[in-house]
């Protein structure tokens, strides 16, 4: 949290923000909640913390946004600090509670609105705040320059060409079918993700390109509460896609990127109908298409028991739970689904900005992650596949914390490992060998 910022609370600014959100939806939600408690049992924070009633979603929104409205914005810093703890430390905005609310109250939207109020007063987790300047100045959360990205792409193209002959990573190719947008943590920390994507696209004979700007599909301002910046991030992606004249925007295996680019970001970017200017496709959709159309063939299926972690923003909020499962059917012999699963699956505990929020929240992240750890353990799976980087890191942490004895993997990793490389793409050395 921004400790240095001790300026007095600007109640006028808060009031303005509250008024801007004071539409029929929020007013109805705040008044209609009958405290029935059905949302409590749906929340993994509540379940993992001895069913503490203060962790029930209804309590959380009532004591943050509800209270802000009740006091007509006249709140002090101490109150906002308490809100900070609830809004970021006790909710990942996974939206599972909305599914169980008999009135369909969208609690996560209210939590996000309250986050925006806190942010307006300089209150937001340090881990999220430190990425915001990078977004503003360079256009991506890690502050990676276009040159650095180009260099990393060149490097990865060299690496991947050892596996798939003729592989290229095209940059700013006009008129390509897909503009492939990525999570900056890939070029920064795990560039192999780029190499694997390039291998899959090459083998599938895809027309694709990476843009030199607007390539960051993540949107941490959305979780930090900076809605203006969140809109700017999405808009720069759309603008670049329109400039390049691509058909569709493709997203890497990232959960919240789908929420941002496909269905929540358009509102921030000023599209009143909530629809992006061109189709946004998640990797899960495209990989499913490749496998079902036979553009990617699998050489051998995984024999170890596998389970699938539904990223909240891909499955529950993005509607791709069946596609995820169909992909696993192509990849693994022994699929063991979690319980509950699909749109009812629990959040891993790393979403909503929780992983980037960093060390301050680590302990709580491990405690609340117990629900996911138990779900995984119950499947007996040895491999957990998840198409989301935050899920990946969180489940890796849970693996250590709860001794799960599993291997976490992305879809790309598995597909690259077991897909058939057609002869024309086999590296020369291998080709000679097989001759």
């Amino acid at each position, binding site marked *: 949290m921004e400790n240095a910022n001790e300026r007095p609370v600007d109640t006028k600014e808060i009031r303005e923000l509250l008024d801007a959100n004071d539409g029929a939806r929020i007013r109805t939600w705040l008044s209609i909640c009958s405290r029935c408690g059905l949302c409590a049992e749906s929340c993994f924070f509540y379940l993992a913390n001895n069913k503490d009633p203060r962790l029930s979603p209804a309590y959380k929104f009532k004591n943050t946004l509800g209270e802000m409205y009740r006091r007509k914005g006249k709140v002090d810093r101490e109150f906002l600090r308490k809100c900070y703890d609830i809004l970021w430390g006790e909710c990942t905005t996974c939206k599972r509670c909305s599914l169980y609310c008999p009135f369909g109250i969208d609690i996560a939207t209210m939590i996000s609105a309250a986050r925006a109020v806190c942010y307006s007063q300089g209150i937001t987790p340090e881990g999220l705040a430190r990425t915001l300047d990078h977004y503003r100045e360079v256009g991506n959360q890690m502050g990676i320059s276009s040159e650095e990205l180009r260099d990393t792409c060149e490097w990865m193209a060299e690496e991947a060409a050892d596996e798939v002959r003729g592989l290229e990573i095209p940059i700013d190719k006009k008129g390509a079918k897909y503009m492939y947008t990525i999570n900056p943590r890939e070029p920064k*920390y795990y560039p192999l993700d780029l190499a694997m994507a390039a291998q899959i696209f090459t083998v599938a004979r895809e027309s694709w390109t990476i843009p030199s700007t607007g390539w960051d599909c993540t949107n941490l301002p959305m979780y930090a509460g900076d809605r203006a910046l969140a809109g700017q991030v999405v808009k720069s992606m759309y603008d670049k896609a329109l400039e390049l004249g691509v058909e569709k925007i493709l997203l890497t295996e990232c959960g919240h990127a789908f929420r941002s680019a496909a269905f929540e970001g358009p509102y921030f970017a000023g599209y009143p109908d909530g629809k992006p200017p061109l189709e946004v496709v998640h990797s899960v959709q495209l990989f499913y298409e490749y496998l079902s159309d036979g553009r990617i063939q699998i050489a051998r299926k995984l024999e170890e028991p596998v389970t699938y972690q539904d990223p909240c923003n891909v499955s529950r909020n993005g509607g791709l739970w069946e596609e995820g499962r169909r992909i696993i059917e192509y990849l693994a012999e022994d699929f063991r689904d979690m319980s509950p699963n699909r749109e009812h699956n629990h959040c891993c505990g790393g979403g909503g900005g929780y992983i980037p929020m*960093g060390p301050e929240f680590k302990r709580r992240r491990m405690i609340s992650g117990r629900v996911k750890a138990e779900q995984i353990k119950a499947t007996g799976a040895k491999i957990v596949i998840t198409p989301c980087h935050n899920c990946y890191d969180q489940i890796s*942490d849970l693996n250590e914390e709860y001794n799960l004895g599993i291997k976490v993997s992305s879809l790309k990793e598995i597909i690259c490992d077991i897909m058939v490389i057609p002869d024309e793409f086999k590296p020369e050395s291998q080709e000679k060998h097989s001759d």
Partner: protein
Amino acid sequence: MKCPVCNEEVEDQRLFCPYCSWELTPDIGDLSPERKALYNERLKIARENWRLLQEYRRFERESLEAPEIQRKAIEPEKIHKKILFCTDLYPSSDYAFAAALDLAERSGAEFIILHVLGSPHRYSGLITTAEGETWASEEVYEKIRERLKEYYFCRIEQENPDWVWIAVKAGTPWIEILRFARKQKVDLIVMGPYTIHDPRLGLDLEKPHLGKHAQRVILQAHCPVFIVTSPKQRLSFRDEGAKST
């Protein structure tokens, strides 16, 4: 004060001995009996390691002087212009350092000491330090740079050598090593085979094994990679060669 390992006179404010790199702990009296026992065990190992290192250096000097080993062909030429030594900050890198330094000195190469602060995550980039999990900030980098300087510069004969520099990165070690080597266009990478986290095992690198990071660096580096194990392994290799001829 005298260094308990190499017995050299060391200024009181030093954190590491400038001769043998022993981490100086001034308040041993405050240690609990358990920690004191561990300290004594480490001290015993460090002394033994120091003795072995001296022996290794003696062996190196003698080998150089021995007429049958011909190094003339190498000496005047700058074969390696940029040598990258990768350290895990454990004594298990010490032999690799000695070998890398030796090569750099002989070939007149630029010498880079690189340490990668490993992240427990694939994507988040958080690192683990003595104080716990944190972000890789310039402050953390500077602290490690100082530590590396104290630890390694005392082993270089020349004072303030301008051909040696230190780099610190954060992330997955083998990826950052490869990225750095490629960016800096280094001619050679030198590193240890694996990390021995337990200080009680010191420099016991005799197990024929390659760690994950060494394996990936060997497989994917654009330049030659030297993996330096224990000199005992090297000696046995020489012996085998002698027998066969």
